[in-house]
């Protein structure tokens, strides 16, 4: 033998390509085509991990993604991946794996003591204890439990690899590339249909690679390779290896995970580690095969006890041998094949134990000649050994118990179709007593199931089923499937007699290996009343581990059925949920992390703001210029105060491009506006702007903004930045859903126009320098609330609105987005000698608070127009959205919280938003809560801290004093309640 455990010949491995890897720091080697599990076996490793609860030593149970035991931490550092199934890791050069859930070492694990007191730690023990003293839970008990539980360790640093998503469409999605899936895909593909074949393995062929059956007179694996090659060459086919279809969603949407680069140490540059696919398939053919069931007997978890089908995979596909002396324990015909294959590979067969007294003598065939001990009607009652298997105890048909030395035991409890994906939309598999197994029940629409997944546990039937399903799918698209003859193959014997639990052996008999759920636990749960399968699952954790009970669920519920003396069909199964196998969180996020989590919107004036040194902040999807620091300024407040002073004394320019802008045209535009705003717009004169307030139908304020009339049938609406998208949607709803008869056309023009406010006493003078001469913007020609289309800078189209958020003489100028930066620069240049300064969101916020204008902190969905002092805008003359419910008693109550201004009595004291208003001398309790501070600012104009707030009774409280209580930050400040307009209450500056 070339190395311990490696067979001298055979296998679908590339002996010309040796691969170095390490496990627990020990370097080893394998070959290309190995999995980590097969390579470990080749290197004589049988102890690979520790179980969840009892920290029992565990080896390798399976050869596929159902593996519950051989979980390792792959890679290291930021790429560490806990709980990786060694059985589905493709070996690569430099692979590093470590065992997990053990301390200090895999061979000696302190917590294995748990196993010794297993009698006390039976299912649900923690629900019954750890209750006293109560304070001990978080401090003592829970940390212990948490540390002992879990499995591997997560990486401590950001995942350095990148992930992506992609979409695919096809006529037929074939899930699984075993004989059934390959045949289905081939048949559909030859008809010309668009086919995707996905298989989670890196080598197509399914069981054909693990078994020695022949197709068309050659090894099945050769047939598989030939078919895969033909499929790969067809333009209408996408053959996806290393791709697990993990979920079925509504509307024939399938989710798949492609492990693009898990078989290399580090993904090549620009390539993702994994790619998540959404596949939209008109038809799907599930050909996922079947899972072999373990047998439940004492110490059945000892390393060396393996599924019989896995033993065949290791011998036939990987040319490794799990042991030198193999015994086989089965209750079905298929189990015998392990012995036959092992014998053919030169492995010594110590015994074949079949629980069926009537097992056909033909099954032994070859074996008989080799003098293999064959037991019929016998059972393995116990495995002996600790970190490896040493012997088995067999109870023969007469009840006599004998011990057989062996280092590997292949067990087969029969096969269960992989029906998982049939259940993701709620379908329940149904019990088929003759298999015996659960087979697909109601299927997702468009899905058919073939091969072992459909209970066809034999090769020829799998091929035929695949061909028929492929042809029928093709016919659904009006294509005729070529009548290529079925390849020739035989059906192997496949009868089973269920054997759910072998009692009588000393030691725990595991049902769920990973979570250490034993047959005894199942019995206990049933005795304690947790009798629904779902309660059994939740009480014992059966089927809740990383393998989701792939090897344990059926055994568990069968044992429950026998405890309850009910048929399995009545007991039923637990619900399968996606994903079929666990999917990395990174893959489900794809590109969307870090800065790419969500799109960033940049204003058309972004460059301009950047040039002036803006500090940007995230504001919803936007980045907005918050303030423009100058050298020597110590904080944002100093900068923003300076900006405010510039606006109040000279002129400032700020970016308001992020406001929503909606173009509304048509003869009925005014009518629509009247219905969506609480105030009236149909009467607005052409060339004028008006402030409007929209209510929700429940009577609360939805949004505000100005709307201007550019022509009789043409309005331009602005919305707040935050609500831009929502208001457009709302208007479309009102139009299309409520009043389709209106002749109105609405278009978002938010992206089209850059918009800037030019504010301050010198704003007109500044603007006049860029506005084309033919447009008169003098106060007389262009008074407050004028809105007109003009040109600037020698012909550039623009819209000029004389509106003011700052309270100064001010304009908003809209220009096409492409020239936004250039226009802003031109205005700055024009205003240099007038003292123009850029100002940001902070300064804007200060000025609107000085003016008592409401914003997002006041229009918070809990306030009415009356609460905000806008009650007089609610028209009495017309119907509009929100009118009726705004009159509900509680919305019109006098003690509602209304908008007021707040001034700390000591003007130097800083106040903060979020503080609550409490009467002076009253207890600081909810009962005395009068309202809260919504917004605050240091007003450079008033040189003091000011705030807006909502207070019970609103304006009636002007002149009274309250405490602003901020318990979180420990402040309690006396303030006077006042009118919310602190600055220029008469509004004279607007008209300058």
């Amino acid at each position, binding site marked *: 033998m070339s190395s311990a455990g490696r067979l001298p010949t055979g296998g679908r491995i590339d002996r010309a390509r040796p691969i170095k890897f390490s496990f627990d720091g020990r370097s080893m080697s394998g070959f290309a085509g190995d999995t980590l599990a097969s390579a470990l076996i080749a290197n004589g490793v049988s102890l690979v991990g520790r179980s969840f609860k009892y920290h029992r030593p565990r080896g390798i149970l399976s050869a596929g993604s159902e593996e519950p035991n051989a979980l390792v931490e792959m890679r290291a550092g930021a790429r560490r991946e806990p709980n990786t199934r060694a059985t589905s890791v493709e070996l690569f050069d430099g692979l590093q794996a470590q065992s997990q859930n053990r301390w200090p070492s895999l061979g000696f694990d302190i917590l294995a003591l748990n196993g010794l007191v297993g009698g006390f730690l039976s299912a649900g023990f923690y629900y019954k204890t750890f209750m006293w003293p109560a304070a001990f839970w978080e401090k003592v008990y829970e940390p212990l439990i948490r540390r002992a539980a879990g499995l591997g360790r997560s990486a401590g640093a950001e995942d350095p690899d990148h992930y992506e998503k992609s979409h695919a469409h096809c006529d037929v999605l074939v899930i699984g590339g075993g004989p059934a899936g390959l045949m289905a895909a081939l048949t559909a593909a030859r008809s010309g249909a668009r086919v995707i074949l996905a298989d989670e393995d890196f080598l197509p062929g399914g069981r054909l690679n693990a078994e020695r059956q022949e197709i068309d007179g050659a090894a099945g694996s050769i047939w598989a390779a030939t078919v895969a090659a033909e499929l790969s060459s067809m333009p209408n086919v996408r053959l996806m290896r290393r791709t697990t279809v993990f979920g079925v*969603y*509504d*509307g*024939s*949407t399938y989710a798949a995970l492609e492990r693009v680069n898990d078989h290399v140490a580090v993904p090549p540059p620009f390539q993702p580690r994994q790619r998540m696919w*959404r596949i*939209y398939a008109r038809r799907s053919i599930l050909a996922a095969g079947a899972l072999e069931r373990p047998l439940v007997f004492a110490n059945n978890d000892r390393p060396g006890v393996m599924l019989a089908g896995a033993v065949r995979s290791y011998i036939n596909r990987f040319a490794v041998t799990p042991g030198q002396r193999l015994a086989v324990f089965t209750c079905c015909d298929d189990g015998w094949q392990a012995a036959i294959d092992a014998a053919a590979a030169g492995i010594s067969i110590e015994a074949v134990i079949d629980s069926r007294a009537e097992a056909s003598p033909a099954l032994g065939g070859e074996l008989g000649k080799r003098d293999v001990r064959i037991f019929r009607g016998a059972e393995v009652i116990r495995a002996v050994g600790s970190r490896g298997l040493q012997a088995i105890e067999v109870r023969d048909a007469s009840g006599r118990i004998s011990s057989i030395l062996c280092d590997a035991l292949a067990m087969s409890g029969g096969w269960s179709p992989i029906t998982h994906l049939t259940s993701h*939309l*709620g379908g329940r598999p149904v019990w088929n007593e003759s298999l015996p197994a659960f087979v697909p029940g109601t299927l997702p*629409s468009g899905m058919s199931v073939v091969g072992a997944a459909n209970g066809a546990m034999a090769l020829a039937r799998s091929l035929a089923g695949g061909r028929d399903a492929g042809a029928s799918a093709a016919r659904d698209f009006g294509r005729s499937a070529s009548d290529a003859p079925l390849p020739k193959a035989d059906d192997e014997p496949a009868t089973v007699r269920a054997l759910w639990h072998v009692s009588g052996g000393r030691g725990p008999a595991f049902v769920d290996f990973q979570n250490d759920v034993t047959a005894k636990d199942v019995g206990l749960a049933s005795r304690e009343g947790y009798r629904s399968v779902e309660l059994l699952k939740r009480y014992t954790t059966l089927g809740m581990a990383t393998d989701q009970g792939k090897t344990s669920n059926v055994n568990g519920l069968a044992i429950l059925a026998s405890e309850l003396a009910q048929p399995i069909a009545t007991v039923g199964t637990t619900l399968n949920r996606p994903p079929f196998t666990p999917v990395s969180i990174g893959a489900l996020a794809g590109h969307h992390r870090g800065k790419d989590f969500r799109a960033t919107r940049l204003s058309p004036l972004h460059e301009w703001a950047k040039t002036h040194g803006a500090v940007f902040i995230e504001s919803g999807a936007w980045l907005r210029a918050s303030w423009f620091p100058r050298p020597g300024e110590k904080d944002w407040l100093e900068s923003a105060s300076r900006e405010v002073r510039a606006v109040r004394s000279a002129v400032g320019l700020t970016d308001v491009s992020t406001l929503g802008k909606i173009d509304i045209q048509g003869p009925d535009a005014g009518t629509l506006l009247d219905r969506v705003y609480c105030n009236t717009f149909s009467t607005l004169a052409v060339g004028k702007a008006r402030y409007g307030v929209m209510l929700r*139908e*429940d009577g609360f304020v939805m949004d505000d903004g100005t709307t201007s009339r550019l022509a009789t049938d043409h309005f331009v609406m602005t919305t707040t930045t935050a609500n831009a*998208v929502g208001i457009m*949607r709302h208007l*479309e*709803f009102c*139009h*299309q*859903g*409520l009043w*389709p*008869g209106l002749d109105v056309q609405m278009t978002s023009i938010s992206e089209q126009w850059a918009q800037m406010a030019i504010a301050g006493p010198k704003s007109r003078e500044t603007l006049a320098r860029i506005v084309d001469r033919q447009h008169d913007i003098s106060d007389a020609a262009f008074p407050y609330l004028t809105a007109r289309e003009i040109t600037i800078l020698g012909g550039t189209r623009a819209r000029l609105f004389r509106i003011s958020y700052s309270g100064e003489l001010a304009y908003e100028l809209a220009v096409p987005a492409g020239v936004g930066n250039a226009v802003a620069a031109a205005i700055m240049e024009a205003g240099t000698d007038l003292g123009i300064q850029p100002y940001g969101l902070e300064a804007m916020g200060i000025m609107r608070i000085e003016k008592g204008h409401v914003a997002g902190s006041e229009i918070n969905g809990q306030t009415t127009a009356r609460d905000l002092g806008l009650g007089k805008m609610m028209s009495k003359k017309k*119907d509009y959205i929100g009118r*009726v*419910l705004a*009159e*509900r008693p509680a919305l019109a109550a006098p003690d509602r919280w209304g908008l007021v201004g707040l001034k700390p009595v000591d003007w130097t004291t800083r106040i903060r938003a979020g503080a609550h208003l409490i009467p002076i001398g009253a207890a600081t309790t909810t009962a005395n809560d009068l309202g809260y501070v919504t917004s605050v600012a240091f007003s450079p104009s008033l040189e003091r801290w000011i705030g807006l707030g909502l207070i019970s009774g609103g304006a009636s409280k002007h002149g009274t004093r309250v405490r602003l209580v901020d318990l979180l930050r420990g402040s309690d400040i006396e303030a006077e309640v006042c009118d919310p307009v602190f600055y220029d209450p008469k509004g004279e500056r607007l008209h300058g």
Partner: protein
Amino acid sequence: MRIRCPYCGERSNDEFYVLGDADALTARPSGENAEAFHEYVYQRTNLAGLHRELWYHSNGCRRWLVVTRDTRTHEISDVTYASKRGEGEAA
């Protein structure tokens, strides 16, 4: 979930914004009847079965659609424009 927009074709539900019961939401009462508005705004039949509901094709043609969908299975049986005149604005 896949919704067949009459204008854009079949798309996944992430291209849409969903508002809820179409029968309730488009049946806006008129006048002063507070009880009728209370029903309209707050009360829902909340059917387990075929449910006519409003979806807005926000990442497509921006039409409001009435989708008939079984709330028990998510199966969609019909999609139309919320405004009858949707197609070609012919009215």
